[in-house]
């Protein structure tokens, strides 16, 4: 599979409240190859920022040639990105990494997203929902973290929050356990804070359910060249940017 460098025009870059943004760009090359769970590296415009920012793919709209990225402003790079407007051109590199397993049929799948971990799950839900039954558990810190759900627009979504201000007052792992008591889930896909994914993976392993987790590490190159994002796995050292970010949970979580 090829990866490209592409200058893309911003169609929309809207704030969904607080620090959360939805970016839409017009792509010709990357859009043809990119899959759920993969990511792109976005080049900052400020020359003092020398590393590209890895941002996961949120939605692939092949019909209109539009790629969507959902991101949070956490540092200088993403803050700069948030100031860009429709019509601005940015350079993106991708598709990068290994995404989720999407060639699945006739399974019951629990997809669990926590906070920004919701980002890559829209495309995943779209891909696997056609031939499987999906339940989506979305957890987040505050009400703004759930604004993105309007863009996902998936009916079988269960919202949980720590303080109960939105949805049920539970965490995602408790909700997953509750679902497992009632339903025969065959697969779990998750993305979110590391501790949440660890707990999800524990539940999956205990119940003998196949589970994929999407990891996050600081990256330098995005191509597997610098080994800045290497992690220890049961199959030796692996690079989150190249071998992941999606891994079989048994490889990375004990």
């Amino acid at each position, binding site marked *: 599979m090829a990866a490209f*460098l592409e200058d893309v025009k911003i169609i929309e870059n809207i704030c969904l409240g607080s620090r959360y943004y939805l970016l839409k760009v017009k792509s010709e090359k990357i859009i043809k190859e990119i899959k759920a769970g993969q990511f792109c590296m976005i080049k900052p415009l400020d020359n003092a920022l020398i590393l590209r920012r890895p941002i996961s793919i949120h939605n692939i709209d092949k019909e209109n040639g539009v790629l969507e990225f959902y991101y949070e402003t956490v540092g200088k790079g993403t803050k700069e990105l948030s100031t860009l407007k429709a019509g601005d051109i940015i350079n993106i590199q991708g598709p990068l990494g290994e995404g989720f397993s999407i060639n699945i049929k006739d399974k019951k799948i629990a997809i669990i997203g926590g906070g920004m971990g919701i980002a890559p799950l829209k495309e995943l839900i779209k891909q696997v929902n056609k031939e499987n039954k999906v339940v989506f558990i979305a957890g987040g810190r505050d009400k703004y973290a759930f604004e993105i759900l309007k863009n996902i627009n998936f009916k079988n979504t269960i919202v949980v929050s720590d303080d109960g201000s939105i949805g049920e007052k539970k965490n995602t792992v408790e909700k997953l356990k509750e679902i497992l008591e009632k339903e025969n889930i065959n697969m779990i896909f998750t993305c979110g804070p590391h501790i949440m994914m660890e707990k999800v993976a524990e539940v999956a392993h205990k119940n003998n359910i196949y589970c994929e987790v999407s990891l996050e590490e600081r990256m330098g190159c995005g191509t597997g060249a610098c080994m800045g994002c290497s992690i220890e796995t049961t199959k030796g050292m692996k690079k989150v940017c190249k071998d992941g970010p999606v891994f079989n949970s048994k490889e990375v979580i004990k």
Partner: protein
Amino acid sequence: MNKLKTNFCGIDMKNPIMTASGTFGWGKEYSDYFDPNVLGAIVLKGLTLEPRKGNPGTRIAETPSGMLNSIGLENPGFEHFKNITMKELEEDISTNLIVNLNGKTIEEYVELTEKIDKIDRIAGIELNISCPNVKDGGMAFGANPKIAAEVTRKVREVTKKPLIVKLSPNVTDISYIAKLVEDNGADAIAIINTLLGMAIDIEKKKPVLGNIFGGFSGPAVKPVALRIVYQVYKAVNIPILGMGGISSTKDAIEFMMAGASAVSLGTSIFTNPLLPVEVIEGLNKYCKEEKLKNISDIVGILHK
């Protein structure tokens, strides 16, 4: 006629552009963006005798116009390199391959050199005695003039391949060490390895890097690297492989004017994966504009 053709310490290269070790993986990671065979040489990721896992995370921190890394020489070790990596490389790579070689002890440097010496396809050795991210060997060797001389001499005894010794900028008098290394058999000097630095996360009240310190690279280090190339050029009679923050053709020309016969591109490839192609094209254009017979005409021009 190819005006970029360069012979760097016995290695025939189509141009003086290489990739800095550790920034270009095992030679093929950037193949989606350009053909690595356009490079004069590829300097491979740091290799050790035994496999190394590298340092614990976090391994990367960004700073203004630069980055810190504490990778810690993660690599699969010589046996894997010889049996798997080299075979994969031989399928697709026709340009020069240079091994960046590391050891914990002088004996290990020598043993690995002997093994590398037997691989015909390797055009040269970059002896890394300047990695700031490992406890044993690395910078500790390069910063000690006596050991730097000894390891160079002992490695020289066991290989006829061109020997490029990569030095650390984290010393008081790099020219002195460069001269000692030359006197003990180095064919070329590679400068600079990264500067030792650190970054702090004020929210967590902890150093950002798992290893606390890391190697500082990127455009921010260029003035320091240029100064060192200039200084070392005066001190030695062997060619210099210059590197440190090169992110444009202009930067590469500056390094050559200061005294580098060839240059390595590193961190800036992360920002711009097409940088090597752009610099090669840029140097060609420069030769035409300046009516040079060969790019080597500008090497060390500042000293003339």
